[in-house]
């Protein structure tokens, strides 16, 4: 169908948000089932997208099935809005769905992400869509889908605990730092993959709806708002969030997730926030505070 646009330009004949309506309906049905059974992986008939697997085709399909003209979209990859992956997905929806886009967490209604959950607490009016490469948390223990299905069905998660405990035996602590398994609403073990375990606590009782799309593996799963998401652990070895020894070199934040940045070939490096929007906001705040202080000093 061709749409007349105000300036007389005729839009190319693609579907709104790329997907055809039948595909959207199929994905929408899967999303509702995923919401009704928190943490359970619903199979869906993943479509070819105009980008390779590994570029977030699962997340893109979920976003395409829910996005509307009134949304404001933010896309992040490793916390940053300006990486190739994030830029191309944002451009994709700006073109095919003509939605507003933003880099500011607080202004987005829909956030598609790979690897990170924004530092700024999400609200009840927002939806977070994760791009997931490997949705099955039990896959490395059991390669057969028929078996992992049974294990989830019977709530047989003993092996998972054994694996974590082997970590402890080997390292003295649980060494898993990414894709750290969680239990959702007291029932399903779920892979928050591939976010760092630093972000796991943000999933718990999160105010935003969280949707997960795995394109190659053809799975959709969900965590409704205000749902318990508990990182697996042991009484004598409780779950611990990664702590960083120094504050962000740019904004001075303590308690944000930091990336290591190599400065030169002599091995100098610094640690900065991985969430670029958050870091910029903190830097502005810092500058404002410095300005206020200078003003106060000048007038006192």
């Amino acid at each position, binding site marked *: 169908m061709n749409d007349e646009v105000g300036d007389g330009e005729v839009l190319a004949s693609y579907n709104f948000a790329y997907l055809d309506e039948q595909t959207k309906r199929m994905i*929408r049905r899967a999303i*509702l089932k995923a919401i009704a*059974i928190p943490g359970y992986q619903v199979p869906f008939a993943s479509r070819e997208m105009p980008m390779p697997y590994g570029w977030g085709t699962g997340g893109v399909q979920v976003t395409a099935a829910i996005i509307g003209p009134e949304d404001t979209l933010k896309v992040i990859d490793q916390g940053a809005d300006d990486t190739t992956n994030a830029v191309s997905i944002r451009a994709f929806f700006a073109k095919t769905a003509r939605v507003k886009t933003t880099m500011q967490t607080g202004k987005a209604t829909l956030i598609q992400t790979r690897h990170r959950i924004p530092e700024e607490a999400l609200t009840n009016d927002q939806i977070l869509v994760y791009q997931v490469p490997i949705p099955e948390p039990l896959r490395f223990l059991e390669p057969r889908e028929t078996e992992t299905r049974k294990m989830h069905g019977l709530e047989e998660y003993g092996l998972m605990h054994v694996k974590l405990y082997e970590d402890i035996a080997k390292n003295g602590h649980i060494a898993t730092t990414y894709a750290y398994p969680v239990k959702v609403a007291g029932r399903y073990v779920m892979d928050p993959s591939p976010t760092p375990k630093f972000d796991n606590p943000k999933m718990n009782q999160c105010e935003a709806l969280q949707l997960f799309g795995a394109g190659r593996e053809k799975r959709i799963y969900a965590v409704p708002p205000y749902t*318990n998401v508990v990182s697996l652990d042991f009484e004598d070895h409780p779950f611990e969030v990664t702590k960083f020894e120094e504050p962000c070199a740019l904004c001075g934040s303590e308690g944000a997730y930091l990336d290591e940045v190599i400065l030169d070939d002599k091995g100098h490096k610094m640690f900065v926030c991985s969430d670029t929007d958050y870091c910029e906001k903190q830097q502005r705040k810092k500058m404002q505070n410095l300005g206020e202080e200078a003003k106060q000093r000048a007038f006192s």
Partner: protein
Amino acid sequence: MMGQLPMKDAYEGGFENPVFDSQNTFRAIMKAMAEPGLIVFCKKMTMPPNPLLPLTAAAFLTLCDEDVSFYLANESINEAAKNWIKFQTGARLASSLSEAGFIFVDSGRSLLNLEVLAHGTDECPDRSATLIVQTNGFQTGDEFILEGPGIKTRRSLFIEGLPEGFLKAWTKNVQRFPCGVDILFVSSDGFAGLPRSTRIVKKQNIKRNANVCCG
């Protein structure tokens, strides 16, 4: 004569803008299912034949197509409504209640026998039925206190016209989790979701205005 009139009705009254109207409807339904018991308002975008409410029709248009089957649970249902859903969505009419993916219920009268509906298996709990249940509104009627995923502490939901044994039937449905059926309640202007993960912790008959939020 040969019943041409109902056929004429069948191809009228659908979405004017299928792409955007179904997206809009879906977001309302998704919000309702993600936050059980919350009344999510949605504008009327369809004109279906009786007894289908505009939002019921919108839900069918948004969720159903050739890939799914539907069933009309009430005997009183007229051919016009059946033909309308069939024509507008392309969904198959299921041969029995237990095979249907989507089930229409006009007022809650036949809402007691949830066990006979498709409720999935332990390994594939998603192979289950969704009930689309019309109510006279969310302002009066029995008050249900809900708990579960999507609800911060507890939420109260008023539903008019549910049968006496509903609480018992729903409790059984919840006990079957992760198997079970999900309910989408529909009124003249809003949706309220009751997915299988939602527990009804209390039912009372106090007449009071329901809390209404969101849009």
